[in-house]
């Protein structure tokens, strides 16, 4: 928190949403649908999940009535911002074939749809967006569709004040309070009667938008209360993951018998990769119309849990579920570090919550620590 720290009331937050809308953003925020918190277009505070909290545990997700008026009183929703900035299905190009010519049409410009303002992005999910920037924008080649969408995006982050049973952002050093990468960051205060939001400004653009709404300068007391609720939230993580030497632990346990144990429970359903905010693997699909004249090529989400994922002529490299779970967790907690300099897990806990078998990345990593290791298993 800096001297720039401001405070918004409920009317001020509504004014912020309005101001973003007037600037041409499609404002996306948390809403309640089908018994879960999901991101959707919003225009009013009434769209937000007022007084709704959540209960999360392995293979368990329930909304609950908080008995208060909190607008952001829940933890990680069913999906992160990933489907907004990196949709599960993206048209790459179209082609048209006539008797003597094939035309390939680029379908990138203008950027698909109006720019997005994301309201209520949690610290874990914000960190995942920054990882996607690194992976999809800053390497050999970039995903131009992601680039177009991301270039124009506006992020209003929210500090988590009530983490869930599957949260472990503190272990992964990604939360619960956003530490940059946002335009504005809110900390919701409601416990002491006056419902208000302490606002940290991250960018000039954030400051410009905030100047259009009635924000007052935060008092020392506001700042102190905000820091206290975040500190308290840090102490209420439902899970923990010991990260010391994790890369070597995973690499050394490549032949651990524990993979068979996980495989006996894992359905290879791909839920974990679909809800993961950092998973970025994709495939491509070709679609033709009935005339055979027009074809489209789409980029779609894919998962290392599917058998086809590693298929080369003659068979799949990873035929067993054992090897696919090993690939997933080793990528998240080890290989990612070699590739990108950080863990590929932000501690949001979604893979634990949404696994139908309740497989828990923190438990499986801990189990590997307990697995006796033969010297021959070192790699």
């Amino acid at each position: 928190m800096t001297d720039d720290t401001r405070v918004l009331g409920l009317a001020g937050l509504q004014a912020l949403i309005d101001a973003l809308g007037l600037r041409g953003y499609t404002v996306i925020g948390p809403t309640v649908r089908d018994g879960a918190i999901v991101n959707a277009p919003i225009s009013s505070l009434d769209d937000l999940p007022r007084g709704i909290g959540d209960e999360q545990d392995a293979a368990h997700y329930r909304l609950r009535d908080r008995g208060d008026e909190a607008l952001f009183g829940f933890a990680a929703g069913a999906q992160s911002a990933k489907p907004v900035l990196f949709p599960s299905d993206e048209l790459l190009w179209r082609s048209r074939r006539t008797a003597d010519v094939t035309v390939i049409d680029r379908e990138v410009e203008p950027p698909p749809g109006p720019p997005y303002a994301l309201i209520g992005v949690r610290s874990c999910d914000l960190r995942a967006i920054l990882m996607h920037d690194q992976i999809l924008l800053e390497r050999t080649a970039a995903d131009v569709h992601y680039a177009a969408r991301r270039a124009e995006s506006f992020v209003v982050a929210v500090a988590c004040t009530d983490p869930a049973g599957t949260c472990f952002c503190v272990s992964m050093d990604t939360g619960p309070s956003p530490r940059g990468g946002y335009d504005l960051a809110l900390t919701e205060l409601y416990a002491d009667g006056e419902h208000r939001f302490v606002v940290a400004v991250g960018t000039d653009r954030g400051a410009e938008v905030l100047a259009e709404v009635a924000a007052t300068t935060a008092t020392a007391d506001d700042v102190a209360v905000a820091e206290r609720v975040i500190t308290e939230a840090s102490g209420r993580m439902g899970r923990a993951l010991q990260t010391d030497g994790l890369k070597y632990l995973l690499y050394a346990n490549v032949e651990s018998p524990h993979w068979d144990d996980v495989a006996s429970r894992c359905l290879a359903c791909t839920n974990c990769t679909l809800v993961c905010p950092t998973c970025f693997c994709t495939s491509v699909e070709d679609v033709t119309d009935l005339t055979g004249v027009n074809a489209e090529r789409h980029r779609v989400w894919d998962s290392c849990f599917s058998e086809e994922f590693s298929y080369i002529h003659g068979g799949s490299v990873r035929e067993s579920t054992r090897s696919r779970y090993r690939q997933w967790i080793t990528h998240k907690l080890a290989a990612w570090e070699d590739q990108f300099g950080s863990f590929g897990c932000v501690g949001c806990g979604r893979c634990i919550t949404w696994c139908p078998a309740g497989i828990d990345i923190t438990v499986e990593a801990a189990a590997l620590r307990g697995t006796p290791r033969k010297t021959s298993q070192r790699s």
Partner: protein
Amino acid sequence: MTSLAEHDHADAAAHALAAGDAMLPRPYRVVRTRQDTRDTVTLQLEPVDGVPLKFSAGQFTMLHAFGVGEVPISISGDPTKEGLLEHTIRNVGSVSGALVAAAPGTILAVRGPFGTGWDVSDGMGGDVVFITGGIGLAPLRPAILELLANREKYNRVALLYGARTPDDILFGDELRKWADLLGIVVEVTVDSGPHSWRGRVGLVTQLIPRIAFDPANTVALVCGPEVMMRACATALRGRGVPAASIRLSMERNMKCGVGLCGHCQLRELFICVDGPVLTYERLAPLMSRWEL
């Protein structure tokens, strides 16, 4: 990681957009086709926009058949000559099936070239051993042609080639020319042959002890099925070739060719950008793990 918080995503996105779309292919026209064996065809392609494709020996392209799909295929042509893009393709699936069936005049779409090269020139002043099995000769051919363009700069050069049957031997005329006129020791073996076959029968690894090279001063380029490459690397190590001087070309599922789709990962490696050509020094710990 350098502070993610301080990075400028708008700037990175602008750069990314300016660099262009690596997923957008260029149309190429099939100029000539040649049936090499019963299941293998060489396509010669010319860019519709007329701009030739420069590549390094060992690199691949993503080759797309209209409405069917796209696969990574190594370039089999001559990197020292600017001309038609050449791909030698074995029919092993729906996309490669559509590619080998492409008649002259067909428009295909091409992205690339992608990946690392053989860097055969590192072998100048020393010996070079090429070892290959099956269609693996196609990705090695550009390196052989690159070497032959400067044959005098290399000492002993050998090509060990294993095919399934005599009918599956690729580039037969060229093999004879390389052996008879250009000073390459060419040893061919087949898995099985008819009674009329006078050549060798057996694994390509069995040829390794038969050839002369100076292990400390040899670059070995190996391309074939993974199990064959492992066996060859082990045999070469056994003769004293350093692991860093043994280069293998890895094959994995690839959907993008530029490190985005994630399919080709081998632990920390993206085979499409870190490879496909990698040293055995780098690969040895990864190749010894089943289903990694």
